[in-house]
């Protein structure tokens, strides 16, 4: 059985970031992406955020919410409570921009190690686990939606 394909926007994003072979160019691109971060609106969640939305193993204290859309997809929202969590903010923007609105089956199949393709292999284990946990949380939201339909 073949796994569902990567969501189209994520695939396009990865193809683009793969072209940035120079480490500093890639880092600069990821910093600029982080600058687009917009926190979860109060209409979705207010502080104190509930633990069930907290990303495990993420020292940047990231939170994830999934809001169902009428078309059967989800909109993903994030909060990153650690002001120094710039990689977490960058990944949050990437996940929102490439997975919100994507078919849930494809979102549920995004591999956690996509973070290495985005950030490179020089992440510490702690950092990579935190970022992979963010992907895992988004996957889980898509899986919950799919289970609810079954």
């Amino acid at each position, binding site marked *: 059985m073949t796994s569902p394909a990567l969501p189209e926007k994520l695939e396009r994003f990865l193809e683009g970031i793969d072209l940035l072979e120079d480490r500093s160019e890639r880092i600069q691109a990821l*910093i600029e992406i982080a600058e687009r971060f917009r926190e979860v609106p109060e209409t979705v969640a207010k502080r104190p955020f509930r633990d069930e939305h907290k990303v495990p193993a993420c020292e940047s204290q990231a939170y994830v919410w999934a809001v169902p859309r009428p078309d059967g997809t989800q909109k993903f929202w994030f909060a990153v409570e650690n002001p120094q969590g710039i990689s977490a903010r960058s990944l949050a923007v990437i996940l929102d921009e490439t997975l919100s609105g994507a078919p849930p089956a494809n979102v549920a199949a995004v591999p956690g190690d996509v973070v290495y393709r985005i950030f490179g292999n020089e992440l510490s284990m702690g950092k990579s686990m935190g970022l992979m946990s963010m992907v895992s949380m988004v996957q889980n939201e898509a899986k919950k939606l799919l289970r609810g339909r079954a």
Partner: protein
Amino acid sequence: MSTSAIESRGYKRPEVLVSTDWVADHLKDPKLRVVESNEDPLLYPSKHVPGAVEVDWTRDLNDPVRRDYLQKKGFEALMSRIGAARDTTVVLYGDKNNWWATYAFWIFQLFGHTNAKVMDGGRLKWEKEGRPMTKDVPKYPATQYAAPERDDTKIRAFRDHVLAHVQAKRPLVDVRSPQEYSGERLHMPEYPNEGALRGGHIPGAQSIPWGRAVNPDDGTFKTADELRAIYEKEKGLKPADDVIAYCRIGERSSHTWFVLTYLLGYGKVRNYDGSWTEWGNMVGVPIEK
């Protein structure tokens, strides 16, 4: 509560710590090099203390092939690149309450660069105080830096030392989280705990998570009395003890090594950088849960 002055906190060697005020006043000192060392590779390029250079723990401090730190030539090249001479005062700071800064500090001590300090509170405190930051990456004239051979004998422990330490029932400090210490699995099902095949801790090790040494609000170190309450009253360590600290790869334990060595004045503290990624993968070594 504002942080008390470093000199009033009762440290044995307060000269290894400098305040953010002190760094701000010395930014243009030509005999000073401010060095940022982080876990998050995006932080320094996004903004940093004006004039600070970056030392990256993976690219700059580790051997690219085998598991070890850079050698004499690599350290000389690093110091030349950041424009530091043997008599340059290096001030390290970084994210994670200076966890990576103390790691770099520890490696600098393997090469005897004793003219090194840590900025109390690190990047967190500097940012919280609204001090200036820049994206400009400075360039300094390269120096001729003559380093001694790396000395692994005094502050670094290897697995055989640790085995002997266990057998002699000498004090070991496990600075990882309580969940790592107990061997409880983490949340990533496809990954073994901490990159090791076995979970748990080295027999006899006390659990003293590294972060207990800092004030979480501003990342500054706790006072000597507060630190003694943790390491000595609560855990029974003594300044004359021969102590080995470890974590996963030796980064967090370098923070505890710094605290015990400089802030509390312990005479013999070694960092076991093989740590749990070595111990938890070795065949036949004892493990406690």
